[in-house]
């Protein structure tokens, strides 16, 4: 019997959340990684507050980007090894829609906590208070793009040896626009020179593009990998 498409998407979404909840240490590890990477910078650069505030937007964004990249390896691998990915492929629903639900769940469990955690680390990095809102907003807009784009290489490298490093290699060049505008938005909000809205609008535009095309590309990538 065939239910509605939205019903199927909801089922995938809830299943993902549930599965993630049962492996919650893995999700927590991503966040811990984010915290540790950010903490390394003051240790390396020195605790001078002005200097820290200067590099804070870049550091926070690079750390969030690396944390997301790490999380990509777990995106499909378990479903791939246990075979439920094959079932999704065989199901009567379009794979693109199911992948979309899966990615949405992934973002709720990685990108969203990263964005919510970021102000805490921003204090550590001496980021001015007035930039906090922009930081959270830029991460809220930016991390879904990271998940969406990153899912394509993650799907392509399923079952490939050395897949983890390969994913980072493939995905980091594609992340440059997001990194540039994300970090720049925060830097603009921290300084006085420019308004951050231009950067945030561009991030939102990227998000729309990624929402439209990335699940499609990701579904084709999965078809190649499961062929």
């Amino acid at each position, binding site marked *: 019997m065939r239910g509605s498409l939205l019903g199927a998407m909801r089922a995938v979404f809830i299943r993902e959340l549930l599965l993630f909840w049962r492996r919650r240490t893995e999700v927590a590890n991503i966040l811990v990684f984010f915290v540790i990477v950010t903490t390394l910078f003051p240790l390396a650069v020195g605790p001078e507050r002005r200097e820290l505030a200067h590099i804070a937007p870049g550091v926070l964004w690079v750390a969030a980007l690396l944390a997301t990249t790490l999380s990509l390896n777990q995106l499909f691998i378990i479903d791939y090894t246990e075979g439920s990915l094959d079932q999704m492929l065989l199901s009567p629903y379009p794979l693109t829609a199911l992948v979309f639900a899966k990615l949405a769940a992934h973002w709720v469990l990685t990108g969203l906590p990263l964005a919510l955690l970021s102000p805490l680390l921003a204090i550590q990095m001496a980021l001015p208070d007035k930039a906090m809102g922009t930081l959270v907003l830029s991460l809220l807009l930016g991390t879904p793009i990271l998940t969406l784009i990153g899912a394509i290489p993650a799907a392509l490298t399923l079952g490939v040896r050395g897949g983890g490093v390969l994913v980072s290699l493939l995905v980091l060049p594609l992340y440059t626009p997001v990194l540039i505008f994300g970090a720049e938005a925060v830097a603009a909000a921290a300084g006085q020179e420019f308004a951050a809205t231009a950067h945030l609008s561009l991030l939102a535009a990227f998000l729309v593009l990624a929402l439209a095309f990335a699940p499609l*590309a990701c579904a084709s990538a999965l078809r190649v990998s499961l062929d």
Partner: protein
Amino acid sequence: MIKYLHKYGAPRRFYAISGRVLPWSAVITVILFVSGLYLGLYWAPPDYQQGDAYRIMFVHVPNAWMSMMAYMALALFAAAGYIWNIRLADILAKCTAPLGASFTLCALVTGSIWGKPMWGTWWVWDARLTSELVLFFLYVGYMAVQASIEDPRRAAHASAIVAIVGVINVPIIHYSVYWWHTLHQPASITLTNQPKIYITMLIPLIVMSLAFMFFYLTMLLVRARNEILVREKDRQWVRNLARKIV
């Protein structure tokens, strides 16, 4: 049209045709390179600002152009191979990648050698330099996927998706780096505001660009022919070929 592609896209047929084209394109490449280098290094007058140092342009600019053209070719071949399942297109895409990466690397290296005397530094985070660097990373990623998947068909399909996603992103990356730069600070050094190029410098540049294009064609044919022989090594026609040589 697709039937036609399949007919001429049969590796064996391509091998025969390319064997006849290859000597010609090799000869043309050599002629163009010799005359281009003569024109560029000897015939063209020295620049009134940069003296003779600007002559690296005749190698640098064609390399930079080719790096982008090769990526377009790579994406087109990859897409054709992915969409219509043309094996030859897969082979051409695979063989284009290292060539394109070399063009990109040469463009970066010659650019930085040129930058040292002109700007006083090896590297500037200029928009063009940065996007060229990202382009190099895209090539590397493509080749890494090709190398890590053994089954040639899956490797071709997977890397085709990488190439297509990459080619959609190239303009986005380029413009974001460009806006990043211009939003950040007024450009202190731009490559675009060079003194207007004179005809005596333009001619060697065009000849050198053509030389690089034919060089790409020649090398692509050589590489593709090798790749075809490797992939079809168990086929009768390759065995006959080998028997003839040995």
